[in-house]
């Protein structure tokens, strides 16, 4: 089942979303670096 809602984004909400996006990007970069390192080790 898919449900959805629209939230009025105040300044704090936008800050939270920006922080989540930044954390996601940092985590992604770490994972990608590890995968590239493994690929290098295997070559």
């Amino acid at each position, binding site marked *: 089942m898919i449900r959805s*809602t629209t939230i009025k984004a105040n300044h704090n*909400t936008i800050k*939270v979303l920006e922080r989540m996006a930044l954390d996601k990007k940092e985590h*992604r970069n770490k994972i990608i670096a590890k995968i590239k390192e493994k690929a290098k080790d295997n070559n």
Partner: protein
Amino acid sequence: MYKYNKEQGADGPYFYFYTELNLTYYVAFRNMSQETFPLNNVYSLDFGEINEKKGRKDTKISSTILNIIIEFLETDQSLVIHFLCDSTDSRQLNRKRLFSRWFSICGMEQWVKYDYDFDSADYNISFLYCSDIYDTALMETEILLTLDVYERAKNG
């Protein structure tokens, strides 16, 4: 489907696989759990190609990513998945639609995908949870509260 590798990262498991066209895809889960029920078993989901290349017309990519997500969810029905659609390249709506399409074909009838849109921000967040365990009204309330908790925890 492609054969994939699983690794345990510091914050959660991640998976990766290589395609026939030498692209490398990852699927990563990051522990974002709060202390109390119902958000005490939350993992964020992220996936993509490591060099941001596109694997067009290769249906094995989406089936592999979907299989990894389902396999992870099947390990624990109390998992709650958090998926933030990127707004960096203004394609967050496409990602949201793609994720909804995957969800609708994956046969997880007892799971709920709850999408949060924001009236003046280019972000979309989805939460996946099992309705056998979690009550939607409680999840709605707690998810809204946790946005605030998340910010306070980061500032603490």
